[in-house]
């Protein structure tokens, strides 16, 4: 791909200092999203996928903080009138920076996991929808209202004009998620961050929302970062996928490539662990051994090594694997694919005490 990337996350580190110790939620994530691309981010709990998404808008809940890394973003509207290379580092801003505020909702919009809680209960849907429009566009209240109703119609809410005056409790979960999408699209952002937008919904509603998102993506041409733990959803919506485990992207590539020809042991195991229609009925699944480690007890070396079926003792527990580019688009973070395999180290050094980034 010769396009210029829309978003480039480089070696991002995010931690949460807590009383009991520091949680390394994101430990060196690299991720590139091109304009108009749907990037799926998959992972189990604690893999840092949501925190990564929140970091794009700098809305990581306290006490989380970005320790290192860059989030390079190329806004499409912000520098229209001024010249310049047009790339901003989102990680470098203060969280209340004016430029950042103009990017939020305008250039990068977000939809959340719990549609039931993402609206203020005491303000009308229309109020919250118009708020987004008025913040970033020069419009009168009246125009904003008309635009709001139009957006509601666009996301498939009937009787949109009257619905503008409804309160969130009068909307069902599916409708709220539609309204949330309407808000997100109100300023035609170039990147939509969708943090598990269908997890809280029933399957039939999930299908509707996925269908809607797919349609709107084609219509508006925005890029989507779609976060989920459901591999099926990823298969259906994403072009590219990044698999995350314990704060790192362990494998990344086109969705077909990853699902059919996975390289990282974790991806392989994950795909085998999912029950598949018509294929696994009545059989034992190939389960991944052990549990997801506590975030206070990050394994040394490769974070997956304690559960990995292909672990090389003395290597995987000491050596942090490097990102290996298998071809133009497919990369993996596993020692098995490194050109120069490190020698087994019989006495594991404690990597935890060493700085995670050189």
């Amino acid at each position: 791909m010769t396009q210029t990337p829309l978003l480039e996350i480089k070696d991002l580190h995010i931690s949460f200092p807590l009383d009991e110790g520091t949680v390394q939620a994101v430990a060196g994530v690299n991720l590139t999203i091109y304009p108009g691309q749907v990037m799926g981010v998959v992972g189990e709990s604690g893999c840092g996928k949501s925190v990564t998404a929140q970091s794009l808008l700098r809305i990581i809940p306290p006490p989380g903080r970005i320790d290192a890394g860059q989030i390079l973003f190329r806004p499409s509207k912000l520098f229209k009138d001024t010249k310049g290379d047009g790339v901003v580092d989102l990680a470098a801003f203060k969280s209340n920076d004016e430029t950042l505020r103009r990017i939020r909702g305008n250039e990068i919009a977000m939809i959340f996991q719990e549609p039931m809680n993402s609206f203020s209960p005491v303000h009308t849907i229309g109020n919250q929808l118009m708020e987004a429009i008025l913040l970033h566009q020069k419009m009168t209240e009246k125009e904003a209202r008309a635009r709001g109703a139009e957006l509601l119609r666009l996301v498939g809410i009937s009787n949109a004009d009257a619905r503008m005056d409804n309160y969130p409790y009068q909307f069902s979960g599916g409708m709220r998620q539609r309204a949330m999408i309407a808000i997100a699209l109100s300023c035609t952002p170039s990147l939509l961050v969708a943090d598990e937008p269908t997890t809280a919904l029933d399957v039939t509603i999930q299908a509707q929302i996925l269908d809607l998102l797919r349609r709107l993506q084609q219509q508006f041409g925005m890029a989507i970062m779609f976060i989920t733990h459901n591999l099926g959803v990823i298969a259906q919506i994403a072009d590219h996928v990044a698999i995350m485990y314990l704060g790192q992207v362990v494998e990344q590539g086109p969705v077909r490539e990853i699902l059919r020809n996975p390289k990282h042991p974790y991806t392989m195991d994950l795909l085998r662990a999912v029950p598949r229609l018509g294929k696994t009925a009545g059989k034992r699944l190939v389960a991944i051994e052990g549990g997801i480690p506590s975030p206070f007890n990050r394994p040394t070396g490769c974070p997956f090594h304690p559960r990995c079926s292909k672990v090389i003792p003395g290597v995987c527990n000491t050596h942090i694997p490097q990102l290996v580019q298998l071809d133009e688009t497919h990369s993996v973070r596993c020692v098995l694919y490194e050109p120069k395999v490190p020698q087994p180290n019989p006495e594991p050094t404690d990597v935890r005490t060493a700085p995670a980034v050189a």
Partner: protein
Amino acid sequence: MSEPRLPLLETKNLKKYYPLQRGMFGGGSGTVKAIDGISFYVEKGETLGLVGESGSGKTTTGRAILRAVEPTEGQVLFRLDDKGVIDFTALKKSDLRRFRQYVQMIFQDPYSSLNPRMTARDIIAEPLVASGLAKGSEVDDRVRQVAKRCQLNLEHLRRYPHAFSGGQRQRIGIARALVVQPKFVVCDEAVSALDVSIQAQILNLLMDAQEEYGLTYLFIAHDLSVVEHVSNRVAVMYLGRIVELAPTSKLFYQPLHPYTAALMSAIPDLDPDRVMKPVILEGEIPSPANPPSGCHFHPRCSFAQEICKTQTPEFKEYRPGQFAACHFAEQLELQGALKSN
């Protein structure tokens, strides 16, 4: 198919209505029909999957069978080899406790289902101790045995639930259900809250235990792939009623009810080239407090006719073992989640 087996459990017209409270003094006006006439049977040793979306009444069904909620009407018949047929719903409270050992439950939320103030050992021992099935060292022996079977670290039995991860907690919950060697276990969304890698471990554990102890499961879930994976037969619920019940493969290849078909079309396929073409259902699930007339599904059904608005379709057997409640079950050619290539 093997020779017909005797049903271990049978529900007949099971209902659970909740009074709807409105107004200051709780004057009842209307009822919520959480489940409205559920009839099915479960054969010994099989797994009956029970699927449906939120508000369909699947959880209430599971709990009503166990009398964790008192059913409003209907029977739950339970066939025990040595004791004959017992009507669970007719048992007096004191008798009910004696029969609890045959029917157990595994819960969805591994956090709220374990009393945080009891050690893992006490939680697992609860069914033995509470019903007086075992005493003294026998309790410990049996707890250790079942804990080992559920792959729990025996040294951790002294610990409280807050020390365990979600997957391990679920193992404790399973151990608690299995310690009395029940005949029938209701798995209420037992793997829904777990991560994929953990979910596979628990599913394997459940299936191994079934084989080893000859268990019969009622497997309640909303994830159709999981249900297809574990079930022999599947019942589909919508708004408090069963709309279709069939052997798993029949249901997934040739559903009879439009709702079943819609549900299946919404499963996101793991194969990116099999693009999901969901049957888009109009609107959302209506409230069980105010269900539509006739066939509950008619306002969202693309095949609905006049008759669907007025008459409740009969739940009957259209193909061997395949039951449905739809006026047009015989006419419609519906597509399942699986295609025979």
